């Protein structure tokens, strides 16, 4: 029977000590422990959030970096293209100019050659004419040394003129 009969003294002491235990532990143990746990959880939560935020930022930064790099690359390519074009244009222009110059020089040379030639020809003609005259004079001198032959020649010339 004693097993299931709660004793008065025991109830009194248990109530007293349990009440004190709840009070003392509640004030000096559970309150600081729970508060610290909460604090730590909050700080861990915040740290995780911050890390996530940092990761997001990093991603964004990386993305913008890449974008910037791409833009720079594009610009460089454009610049290079333009430079190449300019170079090509310059080359082309200079080539044209050079060929023009060359052809002009050639023309000039040709003209001067022609002139020289003409001058030479004229001089040659004059030389030939002079030479012919000299020759003719010599021949005539010889032919006309003998008077009979002079006669004969005059006759012949008359004949020739007659026929004309």
């Amino acid at each position: 029977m004693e097993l299931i009969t709660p004793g008065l003294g025991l109830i009194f002491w248990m109530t007293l000590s349990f009440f004190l235990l709840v009070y003392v532990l509640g004030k000096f143990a559970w309150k600081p422990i729970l508060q610290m746990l909460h604090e730590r959880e909050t700080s861990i939560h915040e740290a995780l959030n911050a890390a996530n935020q940092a990761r997001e930022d990093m991603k964004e930064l990386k993305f913008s970096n890449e974008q910037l790099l791409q833009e720079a690359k594009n610009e460089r390519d454009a610049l290079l293209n333009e430079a190449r074009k300019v170079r090509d244009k310059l080359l082309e222009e200079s080539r044209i100019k050079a060929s023009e110059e060359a052809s002009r020089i050639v023309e000039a040379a040709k003209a001067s050659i022609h002139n020289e030639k003409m001058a030479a020809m004229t001089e040659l003609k004059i030389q030939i004419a002079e030479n012919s005259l000299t020759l003719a004079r010599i021949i005539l001198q010889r032919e006309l040394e003998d008077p009979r032959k002079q006669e004969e020649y005059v006759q012949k010339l008359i004949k020739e003129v007659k026929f004309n």
Partner: protein
Amino acid sequence: MTTNNSRSFLFRFLASGLLVWAVFVTGLFAAVQDHTMLVPANDSAFEQHGKSDSRSEGKFNAGAMIMEHVVDNHEWHVAEIGSLHLTIPLPVILLYNGKLYTFLSSRFHNAAHSYLGFKLEQGGPHKGKIVRAGQYGHAVQDAHKVYDFSITKTVFAILLSSFLLVLIFVSMARAYTRNRGKAPSGLQSLLEPLVIFIRDDIAKSSIGEKKYEKFMPFLLTVFFFIFFNNLFGLVPFFPGGANVTGNIAVTLVMAVFTFVITTINGNKHYWIDIVNTPGVPWWLKFPVPLMPVVEIIGIITKPFVLMIRLFANITAGHIIVLGFVSLIFIFGAISAALGIGVSVVSVAFMIFMYLLELLVAFIQAYVFTLLSALYFGLATMEPEHH
């Protein structure tokens, strides 16, 4: 650095615990030296009197032995060395006829088992109780007028475990303030999972995020008090072995705490549901208020069940273990060889029971706390808005 700190903390903790313990025990010894601390066995309270005593006349009485170990006692029987009983006497505090009487329980170690007219009953319906002794050493009729507020074995164990709980958890709280913002170490990391478990899986899930904080001190205290005393009760030697959580007065008080907290915190919705239970046909409430009566009985049965469950589980565990011990002696009385043979089986079963009891120690603490939290949750639940 950290391990060094926690180690030195552990040393300090153990050292201070041992010191307190040594002072306490030596103080007790000093106080009782003239009260025959070591009582010759044939002069002991249990040796002479009563047929129900376990050791009477050399015959082993298993039932009496088990009951002696399970119920409360006015002194703490520590060990039996040969014919000597090493017993720690505990203070007896009596209120009789408006007067307070205090003396040590070793005063009862005499032929009549009586002191100042009080008698420690050795048998009969009041066995183990202190009653008013008559002229010839017999209990007189007004036995109930003696109010016994003694520091019995159970009370002593309650005070001791309360002291240890305060020591453990206050030092744990100090560790939190010291290690602010750092990872837990030592005692903290051992007990923190349990605290978080009670907060998240018991309090928050049963009571709700908004209101659980108010009930945390009670829930944590009740859990650790039960768990700690369950484990202490499993230790077979002093200062363990007191059947604290298997004592109905102890579980009664804790159940009453739960009941009072539930009733104080019950909101309008809780009481309306009791008086006018929703979802029940009207003829169950009027003209005969059947449902309200059932509900009101329910208010009482909830803590009552809490009380019985813890008490019965722990006591049953103790009785089974003691039963296995008794088997050895019962068979040993028939023949020594048989006793040795049975002891092998008995010890195997005892080890199994102890392992089971370790599990039960946790489960019962958990169940008591969880059900208390559920009742608090019911009492503070807000009506659902449709």
